[in-house]
């Protein structure tokens, strides 16, 4: 539909976006919550012919989406997704934003109301280097958790185990899990060696 400036960078997609993209069926509909500058949606549109919208609250990101030719709706995720009808998307993505949400349970419910499937990614607080920093008496600071404790948007950090427990409690059915250490897949002790966690989930039947 539109010519854009990020098509070149989208070819070398961030590894975390590539993990999500691998789960998306071509031609599907996608809602990307906290879509940033629209890079992921742009990639999904160009490579997988999806139809999608991003949701953003930050003015700079909204402008960046506009420049990138991405549909973007200004909205505060904490207030829910009232503009969107039930089951109106194949996938609702929440990429590295869950840990910064105040209403964690509400947004997961909303994702599964609006989408047939939800996809989340978040930094694994159980990663061994984080544990070592905590054992050493400090809150962890790392490339995926790059904030000091007094100046962080992250209010709800969790481990893989924590998230899976929440899913169980809320009758969320985990369809697929992928745990990454940079661009490497982690299968051995993922709650210890994984840096980023990805889940694809739906309503439990």
């Amino acid at each position: 539909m539109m010519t854009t400036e990020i098509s070149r960078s989208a070819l070398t997609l961030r590894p975390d976006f590539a993990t999500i993209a691998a789960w998306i069926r071509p031609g599907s509909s996608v809602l990307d919550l906290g879509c940033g500058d629209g890079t992921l949606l742009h990639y999904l549109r160009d490579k997988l012919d999806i139809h999608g919208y991003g949701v953003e609250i930050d003015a700079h990101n909204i402008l960046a989406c506009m420049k990138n030719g991405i549909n973007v709706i200004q909205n505060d995720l904490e207030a829910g997704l009232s503009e969107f009808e039930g089951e109106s998307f194949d996938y609702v993505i929440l990429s590295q934003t869950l840990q910064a949400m105040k209403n964690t349970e509400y947004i997961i419910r909303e994702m599964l109301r609006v989408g047939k499937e939800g996809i989340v990614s978040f930094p694994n607080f159980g990663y061994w280097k984080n544990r070592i920093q905590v054992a050493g008496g400090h809150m962890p600071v790392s490339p995926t958790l790059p904030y000091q404790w007094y100046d962080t948007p992250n209010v709800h950090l969790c481990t893989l185990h924590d998230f899976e427990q929440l899913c169980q409690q809320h009758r969320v059915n985990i369809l697929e899990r992928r745990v990454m250490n940079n661009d490497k897949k982690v299968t051995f002790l993922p709650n210890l060696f994984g840096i980023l966690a990805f889940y694809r989930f739906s309503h439990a039947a």
Partner: protein
Amino acid sequence: MSTQDSDSIGIVSARRAHFDTPLSLKSGAVLDSYELVYETYGELNADRSNAVLICHALSGNHHVAGVYADNPKNTGWWNNMIGPGKPVDTRKFFVIGINNLGGCHGSTGPISINDKTGKRFGPDFPLVTTADWAKTYVRFADQFGIDCFAAVIGGSLGGMSAMQLALDAPERVRHAIVVAASARLTAQNIAFNDVARQAILTDPDFHDGDYYSHGTHPRRGLRLARMLGHITYLSDDSMASKFGRELRNGSLAFNYDVEFQIESYLHHQGDKFADLFDANTYLLMTKALDYFDPAQDYDGNLSAAFARAQADFLVLSFTSDWRFSPERSRDIVKALLDNKLNVSYAEIPSSYGHDSFLMQDDYYHQLIRAYMNNIAL
């Protein structure tokens, strides 16, 4: 990127298009022929794919950008938005401003001479709606050989007119930019319009709309209508910061003369407007606002009303706009989302109320610039 570096389109002139095919109006009335006065900026490209229609608001007209050779102070009402290098770039687009049918700036309207009587139409001019205007836009495009507008853009009533065209002639609109608009007026909003109309209708100089033949003009009514409207176009905060409780002469006079600066400002706005605008046109335009309600034929279901739309939309609102609040823009966005149309929506931080859509604001202008840049021709 600074927006100050761009130039005005410069000297422009208005032209006139004549239409001889009778126009059936929504009211049931028929206009046998009519004229529209318009301006264009930029060049229509060879395949006529770069036309952008600007729809004006309640008191606007076709003079959207540039200045007139014989009146260099008369700058177009959206000159900060439209011109070479501006958000709506006339180096890329062929931009058209039309004075709506029923207007008082040259298009056929209440002050025009009715060929059948040899007198001004006055109260006999039929009420026109956004749907009637949409028909006139299509006919206008036909005359230029424009099959499809690259974009239709409008704020306030202009945004409603843009939506109406996107609904009534979906194949003729590729993009619609709807700014500070609403899918229908609220009761409060209609109430404001009614007070404005009552001010005019009850002015002894109104003479049932036939004031032209009495050699009068309902100046007091029109002035009051404009003063009321103006209050609703500003925000409490912008009035407070611009005028506060400042007194014109420094102390209370204990009489009914102009004392507060806000009074002085409002009187000035009212006076200026009453000298330039036609009261019948004002009445008619407020009715067009009140009647706009695309969901009406769909049991109030706006999403059903938008099922026929095909255009991509950009919807913008302003945080301090209480006359056409962000919530009303979100209604439009919801209807577009329900139909899986391409749409972007931003709520622009601004303290200037409804009038924000006319103001120079970097973020607002950057959004429109970015959107317009991405329209492929």
